[in-house]
């Protein structure tokens, strides 16, 4: 059985700063993994490099057996098409309404790209599909609203609908609820995990709440200063062990003196 995500010995640097310092992990299909770690420990960089948004210095990434780390052009787009990405800042196009934003999720699937995904030109099938995606996140009645007219939680729901529209097999969610209030965050996270489980998707999700992580995840990855410190089934972890991820030398740019202070 091929693995959904297989990353081995990833190194990423910004200039002279080593951000990922040899990260390796595998994820089987259908697994839901939560990635924990303090701010600045390299979580986002790891997530971004899984989508090819960040260049690797060395190491290899396979997504469903397809080599991502050396892919270019069409090949890279092919891999990205199979991977949905949910951002902390939602990243909807502000000038377009929710419906059009969701339709844009299908761009990778069409040879004509954008031309097949404008509300004006998209096929009836795709338009229905987009509305269905909005229904699944409970936003069908807001289809013609622009992002600015929606609350943060609603915007993230639209972003999840866009991800659904893409029909990915793997989902990467980078702090999907970090900019939402606790109640909205809880609802969005519920929705996201429910959809992922219903569709049988593989998900890697970063969170800052230990309790939520323990509640939703099958498995927990813990990062500290650019390395994986914890990799265990959620039943094998305990709260003090997870809390330790947030103390001491957590940041990749930390210097000895600052930690002592």
């Amino acid at each position, binding site marked *: 059985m091929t693995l959904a995500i297989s990353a081995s010995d990833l190194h990423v640097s910004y200039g002279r700063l080593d951000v990922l310092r040899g990260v390796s992990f595998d994820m089987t299909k259908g697994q839901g993994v939560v990635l924990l770690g303090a701010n600045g420990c390299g979580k986002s960089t790891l997530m971004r490099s899984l989508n090819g*948004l960040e260049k690797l210095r060395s190491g290899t990434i396979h997504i469903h057996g397809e080599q991502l780390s050396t892919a270019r052009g069409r090949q890279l787009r092919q891999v*990205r098409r199979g991977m949905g990405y949910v*951002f902390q800042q939602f990243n909807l196009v502000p*000038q377009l309404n929710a419906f059009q934003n969701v339709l844009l999720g299908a*761009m990778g699937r069409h040879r004509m790209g*954008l031309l097949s995904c404008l509300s004006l030109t998209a096929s009836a099938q795709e338009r229905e599909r987009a509305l269905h995606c909005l229904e699944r996140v409970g936003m069908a009645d807001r289809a013609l609203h622009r992002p600015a007219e929606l609350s943060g939680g609603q915007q993230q729901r639209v972003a999840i609908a866009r991800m659904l529209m*893409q029909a990915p097999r793997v989902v990467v969610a980078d702090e999907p609820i970090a900019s939402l209030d606790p109640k909205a965050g809880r609802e969005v996270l519920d929705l996201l995990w429910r959809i992922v489980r219903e569709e049988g998707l593989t998900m890697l999700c970063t969170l800052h709440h230990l309790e939520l992580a323990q509640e939703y995840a099958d498995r927990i990855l813990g990062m500290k200063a650019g390395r994986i410190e914890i990799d265990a089934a959620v039943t094998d972890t305990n709260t003090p062990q997870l809390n330790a991820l947030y103390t001491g030398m957590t940041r990749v740019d930390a210097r000895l003196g600052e930690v002592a202070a």
Partner: protein
Amino acid sequence: MSDTTNLPPRFRAPSALSWVVLVGFAAFFIQGIIASDISVERLVKGASNLVRFVGQAIPPDFSRMPNLADAMLETMNIAVVGVTFGCLFSVPLALLAARNTAPNGAVRAFARFVISVARTIPDLIWALIFVVTVGLGPLAGILAIVMDTIGFAARFYSERFEEVQKGPSEALTATGAGRLSVIFGAILPESFASTTATSLFSVEKAIRSAVTLGLVGAGGIGVELSTAMRLFRYDQAAAIIIVILVVVVGFEQLSTSIRKRII
């Protein structure tokens, strides 16, 4: 309070470089005044000439109004056609010149070079060049406006493209969309309001330049104005200037009200 902190000085002597710049500027300024032979006597004479001009210009002679209307229409044709093509050509050029949309550094440098040439050469000189290449008449004016608009609009478009938030285009890139799809799906919609405002500014600018292009024979109402002035028919010239004023002000009002609605 520690005694090592001093009050900031009231006055700090300028650096040597500032002195050089200041003295150089003053020398150039004085030399300019001497060279252009400015004297009170000439200014007084100029003022009396101005009174004579105004005296002859009033009342303005609108008897050639049908011809003037034709010429003004031609000026507006030049402006509208020129600015439309100019804005259309500016979009691809600006995409090639913006850091986040250019395919590579060499193309970007070339596109920026083209834009800065279009901007650096004034519209009247473009008109002279096109009068030589395509002959007298409105076509030369249209081409001159196209070049002038590119120099202005393409530069502002490309600056706007560079300022768009990275997030949305990154999100579309992450879906596996191609580069052009990302540009047209995220970057162009995000900069739509500001590019429209820039385009409306270009229209105002184009109307103003189209008026003067006739002076070098590139069609429009400028031809009428220069003829009237050369024949000392100041009353006709005054009528032309009034027509120009009304049209330009009207256009600016229209474009301002559209712009307010968009932003």
